[in-house]
Structures are given as C-alpha cells and as structure tokens.
C-alpha cells in the first residue's frame, strides 16, 4: 500500500514535470518565432517579380523520321518486328537536371 501511495506521488510529479518542461519549451519556441518573423517582415523589401510569360510555341515539324527511329528502338528492345508496332503518340518524359543526365550517360557509356 505504501508503495502505491509513493507511486502516485511519483506519477503525479512525473507527468506534471513532463508537461511543464515541454510547455516551457513551447513558450520559448513561440518567442523565437515572434522575434524572427518580426525581423523578417522588416527585412522584406517589396520586390515584386515580373513574370515574363515564356513564349514557347514549338515549331511544327515533320516528325516521321523521329517516329521511325522510335519504332525501330522499341522493336529492338521488345525483340519484335516493326510491323507489329504502331506509334500513336510520343511525349518527352523528362527534362532531367543536367547532373542526372550526365550520370545516366556515364552509366550507359561506362
């Protein structure tokens, strides 16, 4: 029984301390946020970015040569005749960053 009463004291003190410590940290962090966001607002000069609409209209070109290349590549990789394949559409999958492309090229060549 004595154990239980002692335990109750420990548990109450324990849970209160945990809450108190973390609540104090919360307070300190809020204080930090107030200080820094206030500073940020002052530092923020009005600098509206001028959006330049990119006029990227792709030139219409004859793509039959490209389709022929694609068909041949797919046929080669699937081990099939080009007669079984028909390319309906194609789309460039990615515009990978230059480093990704370099790495890929290195992998292919190396």
């Amino acid at each position, binding site marked *: 029984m004595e*154990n*239980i009463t*002692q*335990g*109750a004291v*420990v*548990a109450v*003190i*324990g*849970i209160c*301390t*945990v*809450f*108190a*410590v*973390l*609540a*104090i*940290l*919360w307070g*300190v*962090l*809020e204080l*930090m*946020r107030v200080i*820094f966001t206030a500073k*940020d607002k002052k530092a923020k000069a009005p600098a509206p970015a001028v959006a330049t609409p990119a006029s990227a209209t792709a030139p219409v070109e004859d793509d039959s040569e490209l389709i022929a290349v694609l068909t041949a590549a797919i046929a080669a990789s699937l081990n099939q005749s080009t007669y079984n394949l028909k390319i309906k559409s194609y789309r460039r999958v990615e515009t990978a960053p230059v480093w990704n492309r370099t790495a890929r090229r290195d992998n292919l060549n190396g």
Partner: protein
Amino acid sequence: MSNLFIDGITSFIQSTGLAKLFTATEGTALAFAGVDFGSIVMLIVACVLIYLAIGKQFEPLLLLPISFGMLLANLPFSNLMHNVLFVGSGEEHFVMSFSDILHKGGLLDLLYLGVKLGIYPSLIFIGIGAMTDFSPLIANPKSLLLGAAAQLGVFVAFFGALFLGFSIMEAMSIGIIGGADGPTAILVTKTLAPKLLPAIAIAAYSYMALIPIIQPPIMKLLTTKKERLVKMDNLRPVSKLERLLFPIIVTIVVGLIVPDAVPLVGCLMLGNLFKESGVAERLSKTVQNELMNIVTIFLGVTVGATASADTFLRAQTLYIVVLGLVAFSISTAGGLLFGKLMYVLTKGKVNPLIGSAGVSAVPMAARVAQTVGQKEDPTNFLLMHAMGPNVAGVIGSAVAAGVFLAMAKVL
C-alpha cells in the same frame, strides 16, 4: 600411459558444454534430473528471435545482435558473459566490483560496461540527434504538448506494475517502455532494475517494430472520420538561425529543470547541432553512421547476453511484455486524446491523428499517422505534421526518464 590418455579424454569431455548441460546442479533455473533445461530453453528462445529478426525483419538491426548475444551467453562454459559480476547472486546489497569484472570478465562482460556505465545510450542519442530534423517541431511548437501527452502510458504502466507487485524501481523501468524509445529504456533500467534489462529491452524494441500493427486500431477507435479527414495548413519555413538555436535552447532549458535527462537530451542536441551547424559535416556523418552502428552492435549483443535462464525465464518477463503493450497503447491513446483536444481548441485545424505520433519511435509512428490519414483521403499528407509530435516525443520520454532517475535517488 593409458591412464594418462583416459584422464585426458575425460577432462576434455567434462570441459564441453554438452557435459555441462547434462550435469546441472540442482538450484540453477529449470534444472531437473541433472539436465539444464534453462540453458536449452534459452538457446531455443535465441533461435526463435534470430528467426524473427531475419525471417520477419522485426527491427533486425537490433534484434539480430540481441538474439545472437543471447545465444552466445547461454552456451555453457563459453565464459563470454558473467551476469553474477554485475548483479550478484542474490545478495541483499550487492556492490559491483570493477576489479573483478576486469580480471574475470569475458569479452561481453567488458563490452557490457558500456551499458552499465550508461555510455552506449548517450552515444546512440548523438547519432539520433544528427539524423533528426527538428524543423517540423520548430514550425509548429504546439506539437511539443502532444509529445508530452503521449508519455501518459509511461505513468499508467508504472502504476500497473506497482499493482502487480513490482518494486518502485522496477515499475519505473517497466513504465518507460511506454516512451517507445529503446536507448532511454535501457538507460533507466540499467540504473534502476538491472535484472530486468533483457526483458525490458526486448519488449521495448519488439513493440517499436510492431507499431504499424498496434497503433492503427487505437487510432480508428478514438477518432471520428471527420477528424481523420482534417487537412492541416502548410508548415512555415524555418530559418537556419532558428534551427541552430533550437538545440542550444532545448539543452539549456531541459538541463536546468531536469539535470538527470541531460545524458539523453544533451547528447541528442549535440548530434543535432553537428548536423545543423553545417561546419562539422564529417562529425555529423560519423555519428550517424559509423559510431551509431558500432555502438548498436555492442549494445545489442551485450543486452542480449544478459538474458540468462534465471533472470529471463520467469513470470515477471510475461508481465513485462503485457505491461509494455499496455504502456504503448495508452501512450498512443494519450497523444490522440490530446490531439482531439487541440482539434476542438483550434476549431478543426489540427488532425488528431498526429497525436499518436507523440510516442517517440522516429519515424515509424509518424509514418503510421500518415498511412492512417491517407486511407481516409489519399490527398492528405500528414507526415511532416506528425514529425513534430514524433520528435517532441523523444524529448518527452527523455524528460520522463530524467524524472524517474531523479525520483529514484530520493526514494
């Protein structure tokens, strides 16, 4: 001549482990008719745990060394580990003798000093600190309270253990399983109840592996569909200065209030400062990888090695396993209920699911919150919001451990 030969063979046979298994003296655990069933059962338990680690991938990085350490220590005559040197053989007031350990100890005894002196848990915390990004917490400091609420299970299980007849020190060690933090549990247990160390360490790490199974039913039970559907506002960006100041401030605040938590919180923040400072990248990488891995090996193998038949094969171990589950579940519930309170107070801006991530298993608990949230609404991304309470839980359970250690000194 032939006598010498026979004597040689007999003494060799007597020195084998097999001979030891079948000539056990009465009085050792589970020894019947001269057969040492205790060691045999422990070897089987070790093999089952090895299977769980490799076959089922339960926290393999820890369970594998733990289970193999158990295997090593329970081979008769292997002389790698002598628990008697650390916990005595039943004396009322046993005083550990370092001279004995250094003179008589085997490899695992020497490595176990790192556990016994509280070195490994702190070193692991440096690594965890360097791997942890505290910015979700800095951006949303309210989540600190969720990390505190999710320590509820620690204290409930502590009480439960007292009712089951454990001493106060033992109950504290069992309760801390509810903090869901392996190193913290080990630090508290090695100080307060070293005999329970293997059972508590294994329970704590197994439940961490089982989080994705234990938590979701409780989360669904305690929240409504409407609450689970809440989408939270994007977190604000956190500046580098804030991330630098955070570890320093936390160390000072926690250190001044609960000095006994400093070995954990202080080391956690040291590692974090390595990472955030940006000027100590080599140190940060070392503590995250090499140091952490080396210490994990030593910690796992030696904690496993403390599991001997007479301390592990007891009803106590079963109680610990059950109480650990209770502690875990109530911690989850505590976080969720506080999350619901925040949901009400913020008029529906906080998704209560992130409260369950307040148990400190990083990042599993946060991932569970994310998965449960996405089951209701696949476009809802709670992960970063849940990381706040998750890392707060680490601080919370370290503080709870500090409180226990401090109280144990005055009781």
